[in-house]
C-alpha cells in the first residue's frame, strides 16, 4: 500500500541510480478501489520496465490527457473518446480483452425505484454522467439525445458529472441521481463485488459493443524503449504470474494490439454530437 501511495503521489519517479522513472496515468475507466490492484500493477510494471514506475491518478480524463500530451506521463489508461479526439497525437499500445473481446457496452441505468423502462422515459430525471470526455460515461447518452434532437439540459431536469463510473452507480443507487450513464464493464464487475449497491440500480439501455478504453502513449514517445517495454509487458501479462493476478483483479482476459476500426463506432458518435453542437446556437 505504501509503495502504491508513494507511486501515486508523484508525477515522475527518479531512481537511485539516476535512471529516469516512468509515470503511468490512470483514469476511472477501471475499478482502482480494488484492494491491492494499484500496488500489484505498480510492482509488475516496475519489474517489467526495470525502472521505478509511478501510478498517477487524476480526477478527469482531460487532466490525464493534458499530462500525457505534455509529456508528464509516459503512458496512460484513458477512455477511448480522448483517443478518438486526439488520434493524431496518441498511439494505442494495448487494448484490454474483456470476455474474449476488445470491447464493452455502455449502460444507462436508473434507481430501482424508478418506473422508467426505456431511455425515453428518462425525460425530466436528474442524470449522472461520468466524465464529459468519456465515451461510456457521456458520449453514448449524448449521442442518443442527438438522435432525438435533444440536449442534456433540455432532456434531463438536471445533470452532473461524478468523474468515476463507480461514483455514477453510487449516485443512482443512493437516489442522488434518478439515472446515470456508466461503462458496462464496471457495472458488471461491481455486480459481482458490490451486489448490494448494484441491486439498487436497473439497466434501461445497453449500447452496442464499443472499443474498450485503451492504454495509450504520446505518438512522439512511442519509439522510446520504456513505452515499447510497457506495451510488451501488457501483451505478455497472461504469461506472468503477477500479471495474471492483476488481470484477475481487473476481470480481464488480457491485453492485445488494437485491431483496425475498433473505435470507429465511438468516432462516429462523436462526430454526430459535434455536428449537433455546431448547428445549435
Amino acid at each position, binding site marked *: 500500500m505504501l509503495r502504491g501511495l508513494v507511486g501515486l503521489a508523484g508525477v515522475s519517479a527518479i531512481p537511485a541510480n539516476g535512471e529516469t522513472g516512468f509515470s503511468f496515468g490512470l483514469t476511472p475507466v477501471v475499478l482502482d478501489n480494488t484492494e491491492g490492484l494499484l500496488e500489484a500493477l505498480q510492482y509488475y510494471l516496475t519489474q517489467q520496465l526495470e525502472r521505478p514506475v509511478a501510478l498517477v491518478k487524476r480526477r478527469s480524463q482531460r487532466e490525464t490527457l493534458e499530462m500525457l500530451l505534455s509529456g508528464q506521463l509516459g503512458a496512460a489508461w484513458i477512455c477511448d473518446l480522448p483517443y478518438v479526439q486526439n488520434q493524431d497525437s496518441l498511439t494505442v499500445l494495448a487494448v484490454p480483452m474483456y470476455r474474449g473481446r476488445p470491447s464493452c457496452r455502455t449502460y444507462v441505468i436508473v*434507481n430501482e*425505484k424508478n418506473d422508467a423502462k426505456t431511455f425515453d422515459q428518462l425525460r425530466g430525471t436528474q442524470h*449522472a454522467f461520468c466524465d464529459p470526455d468519456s465515451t461510456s460515461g457521456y458520449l453514448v447518452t449524448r449521442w442518443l439525445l442527438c438522435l432525438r434532437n435533444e440536449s442534456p439540459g433540455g432532456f434531463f431536469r*438536471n445533470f*452532473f*458529472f*461524478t*468523474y468515476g463510473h463507480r*461514483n455514477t452507480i*453510487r*449516485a443512482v443507487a*443512493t*437516489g*442522488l441521481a434518478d439515472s446515470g450513464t456508466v461503462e458496462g464493464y464496471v457495472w458488471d464487475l461491481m455486480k459481482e463485488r458490490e451486489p448490494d449497491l448494484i441491486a439498487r440500480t436497473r439497466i434501461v439501455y445497453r449500447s452496442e459493443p464499443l472499443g474498450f478504453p485503451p492504454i495509450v502513449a504520446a505518438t512522439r514517445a512511442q519509439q522510446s524503449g520504456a513505452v515499447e517495454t510497457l506495451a510488451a509487458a501488457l501483451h505478455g501479462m497472461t504469461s506472468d504470474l503477477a500479471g495474471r493476478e492483476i488481470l484477475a483483479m481487473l476481470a480481464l482476459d488480457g491485453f492485445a494490439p488494437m485491431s483496425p476500426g475498433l473505435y470507429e463506432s465511438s468516432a462516429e458518435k462523436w462526430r454526430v454530437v459535434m455536428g449537433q453542437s455546431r448547428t445549435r446556437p
Partner: protein
Amino acid sequence: MTPSLWRVAAWPLVIKVPVLVAGLMVTVAFTISQVVLWKFVQAQEHNLKLVTGAYLDGLSAAILPAIVQGDVWGVFDALDRGRSRYADVKPVFTIVELPDRRVLASSDPLDYPAVPEDRRSRFAADDSLTIDSSSDVRRGWLARTLCLEPFPAGRPAAAEARSSPCLDKLPVARLYTEIDITDLLRVRREILLTLVLVNGCLTLAFALGGYFVLKRMLQPFAVLTRYVEQIREAGRVEPIPAGYRGRVAGEFGQLFERFNAMAVAVDERQTLAAQLADREKTAMLGRLASGIAHEVNNPLAGMLNAIDTIQAHGKDPAVLDASLEFLKRGLAGIRDVVEATLITYKDGFDTKHLTPGYLDDLRILARPKITARRLRLDLHDHIVEPLAIAGSAVRQIALNLLLNACAASPIGGLVTVITSWCDGTLRITVADQGPGLPEEMAALLHRAAPAMARGQENKGLGLWMTGHLIRRLGGHVDVEYPAVGTRMIVTLPAQPKETLDAAA
C-alpha cells in the same frame, strides 16, 4: 392490627428508625441523582454542540469549493464520507440548500430529498443546536450558513448578503443536519438506572444495617420487658441476673439496677402480704372456732336446761314432749354447724372439678349471715355438667362474694347468686341491694398485693383474696353498679370435664 400498621407512632423503634434512615437516604439520593443527571445532561449537550459543530464545520470546509462549482457529486461524496468519519455524530440527514431553496445535495436523497417542512422550524436562526429529547423524537437539529469571503473593496454587497448571518460575506448555501441522539439518551437512561440501582442498594443496606444494629442496641429493652411481663402475667418478681449487667451500655445498666431494686421491694411486699394472709387465715380460724363455739354453746345451754326440766318435770308428758322437741332443735342446730364446717373444710383446692349442685352448699355456708340479717337468698345454679375447674376455689370465690354481698345488703334485703356456663366460660353473678361497693374496695380485686395502709391491713383482705383466686384461675371480675346495689360478675375459663378426658 391493621389500623396500627398505618399508625407510624405505633411502629416499634427498631422499624421506625431504619425507615427514617431509608427515607432520608432516598431523599438525599434523589436530590443527588437529580443534580448529577442535570449536570451530566448539561455536559452531554455541551459536548454534542461541540461535536456537531465540528462535524458541520468540517463538512462546510470540505463542500464549500464543490458548492461554488455546483459540483453535485462532490458535495454528496463529502456528505457521504462525513457520515462515517464522525463516529460521535449520527446524522439522519444532511442537506445542502442553495439560497434559492434548491437542494444541491442530500446525504440521503431517497428518504430526505429536501428539508422536511415540519422540521424546518426546528433549526435555530442563529445556527445553534436545538434538541428534542422526548421519547418519540430523540433528535437534534443544527444548521450552518456557508459564505464566501468578503467582496473586494469597492464592490457593493447585495442587500440580502448584508442582512444574512454571514454579515459582509456572500451566503452560497445553507447546510442542514438532523442528528439522531438516541445513543445519548440511552447513556442518560443507563446512568439514571445505575444511580437508582446504586442508591437503592445503599438505602436498602443502610436500612437493614440500621435495623440489625438498632435491634441489638435495644436488646436490653427486650430483657426488661420480659421481666416486667413476668410480673404482670404471673405475679412473679424476679431481678434481672447480674450477667446481663455487664453486656449492656451504661444507661441500661442503671435501668436494670433500678428495676432490680424495685423487684426486691415488690418481693418483700408480697412476702409481707402472704404473712398477712396467713394471719388473716389464723384470725378466720379463730373467728370460725368462736362462731362454732357460739353456735354450739347456745343450743347446748338450752339443751341442758331442757334436760334439767325433764329431770324435774319429766313425768308430765307435755313438758317432756316440749323438752324433747327443744332438745331436737338444739341438736339440729348443732348438726347444721357441723355440716357447714364439714362442707367448708372437707376438701381443699385439690378439687379438680365443679359438679352440678356443688354450689348449693352456699345456702348452708351463708345461712348464719342470711339469718342474722333476715336476708332473702335467690340462688340459681344453671351448671348442668361437670366442669374441669377447681370446684373448691370457685365455691370459695362465690362464697366470699356472697358473704360480702350479705354484709353490704340492708336488713331484709335480697341477695342474688346466678351461676351459668356457656362456650367454655363459667360465669358467676352476685348482686346485692347495698349502697354500692366503694371503688377503692373494688380496686382490691385487681391488685397484685393487698392494701397496706397503716391500721387497715385486714380491711378488704377477702376481696383481694377473691381477686387473687380469680387471677389464679385465669379469669377476671367486673363490678357493675345498677340502679340499686352492686353486681359483680366473675368470668372463668372452664371446659367440660368430658372434653378434657377425651383429649387426654
